[in-house]
């Protein structure tokens, strides 16, 4: 397997192979936790940390682990990093740790992480693997935060409320009320997350479509083919 360039790895993780919008992996935390920006950002950072750590570790031991034992080994590595993330959150952002609850330990089961370990990090050297972990984590996190923002804005009418739970007292005043008295319960509940994710996927496909069409338009015009009846071949 050839090693792709770092730019290509980044583009894949952030956009063209985005774990949330294209691979549709890690949907469980994505849908359950993205009810506000602070929840989404907290889980995004934890996932990013685990993904980066596990990709680096898996890449480092890739020559030592035999094929039959690799999956249990990867899961142990991921579980270790998840425990680290969990303890860190319990130590520094206890309130958020209480809110996210079971979804922090459940990062272990996030298929996006095991998927990157198996599909990329176990076959690639350290630097591309680390880049891949970082960029995939950022891609997942970006979708998570975007979804959290959408659901908080149109579900509760606010944005960036309770950011101090994650970013410390300095962020206490960040919360803004955009639509007072808005209480659109559907978006706050999990079905709304499904719906909003579907819309984001549609939006991504729309953008891809536009880009592709623009690329096609920029290609130099093919020379016109003149077709004539009863002639084999074409005259250019």
């Amino acid at each position, binding site marked *: 397997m050839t090693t792709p360039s770092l730019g290509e790895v980044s583009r894949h993780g952030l956009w063209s192979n985005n774990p949330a919008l294209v691979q549709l992996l890690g949907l469980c935390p994505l849908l359950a936790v993205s009810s506000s920006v602070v929840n989404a950002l907290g889980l995004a950072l934890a996932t990013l940390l685990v993904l980066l750590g596990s990709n680096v570790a898996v890449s480092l031991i890739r020559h030592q682990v035999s094929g039959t034992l690799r999956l249990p080994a990867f899961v142990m590595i991921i579980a270790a990093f998840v425990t680290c993330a969990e303890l860190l959150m319990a130590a520094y952002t206890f309130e958020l740790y209480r809110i996210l609850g079971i979804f922090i330990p459940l990062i272990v089961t996030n298929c996006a992480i095991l998927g990157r370990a198996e599909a990329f990090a176990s076959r690639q050297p350290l630097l591309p693997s680390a880049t891949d972990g970082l960029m995939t984590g950022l891609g997942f996190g970006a979708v998570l935060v975007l979804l959290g923002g959408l659901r908080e804005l149109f579900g509760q009418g606010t944005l960036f409320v309770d950011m101090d739970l994650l970013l410390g007292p300095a962020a206490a005043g960040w919360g803004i009320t955009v639509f007072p008295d808005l*209480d*659109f*319960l*559907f*978006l706050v*509940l999990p*079905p709304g997350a499904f*719906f909003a994710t579907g819309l984001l996927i549609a939006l991504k496909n729309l953008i891809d479509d536009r880009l592709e069409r623009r690329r096609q338009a920029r290609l130099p015009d093919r020379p016109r083919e003149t077709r004539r009846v009863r002639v084999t071949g074409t005259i250019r």
Partner: protein
Amino acid sequence: MSLMHTDQTAPRRPASTTAVMGWLLVATLPGIAALTWHFGWGVLTNLGFAAAAAIGLEATMLRLRHRPVAATLGDNSALVTAVLLGAALPPGSAWWLILIGMVAAIVVAKHLYGGLGHNLFNPAMVGYALLLVSFPGPMSLWPSPDGLLSPEARPLGEALHQLAGLTSLETRDALSGATPLDAFKHKPEALMASEFWADSPLPDGALAAWQQVALAWLAGGALLVYKRVIGWQIPVAMLGTLTLVATLLYAGNPSHQGSPLFHLLGGAAIFGAFFIATDPVSAATSRRGKLIYGAGIGALVMVIRPAGAYPDAVAFAVLLMNFAAPFIDYYSEPRVYGHPTATRGIRVDVDKEAR
């Protein structure tokens, strides 16, 4: 020469969608008239705004999907969705509530699934269920049934004021009364049903008003069955099962359960049976399938009403059975004449294996 007269035996031409939807609209008139008579102008403002929103949204979606706009709008299906949702919402709803419901119905439930004929779920009920889950407050504000001509009746101007969303929730709350099902749902546990009714928990004439509205829907539904716009199977199976389950529950615990008649006429059961559950797209299609489908809705209504969190359950029961409709169709396909019974699915044909 009698052989020449083949007109009598020629198969009927299938009715066009426009004609079917037209008859549906006609059949809603008695129900709408009864609703307006008892609950005031708010019913008509609901319907008017819902219809306008439906046509606007339908036209927009058709244009976005590069479909013929005028020809498809002419089939009246968007209008039927609007009338059904508008009649199901509390009279005098605010414009934003109706608009969100219509967006969910027309844009999401209908066009995102591929347009008329491809929707898995009944569009009007998707809109209604979304609103019920999202806005429990405004969705429970049924005005008290004062009647259109009584001195307490509020004028058309006030209904328009409510439609514009200018009437505060508190004011509307003061003017509203609980629906019979809602009141019965929140009956104190210790209170017996007879004591509850003796207490006159509803505004004057509310129960009678709801029963008359249900009977008006029944008249419209009978017209639909008579004109063969809908089959008799779904309404009969649904109402029959509902009555049966309600009777069993009532016989088991008459002091705390509602009577079968109360369940039949006190809520949206009749309206749902004739106008919602019979949606030709999302319902089961074979005759046997329609019986199973209708019975499932009736049973689910009587499970959700006593045991669920919502007082009326027709929308959720219909949506749940929409899920099951393809499955029901698969196992209830009629035998083709001249062919043996179909063997498929989990049934194992022993004879064939022995051979």
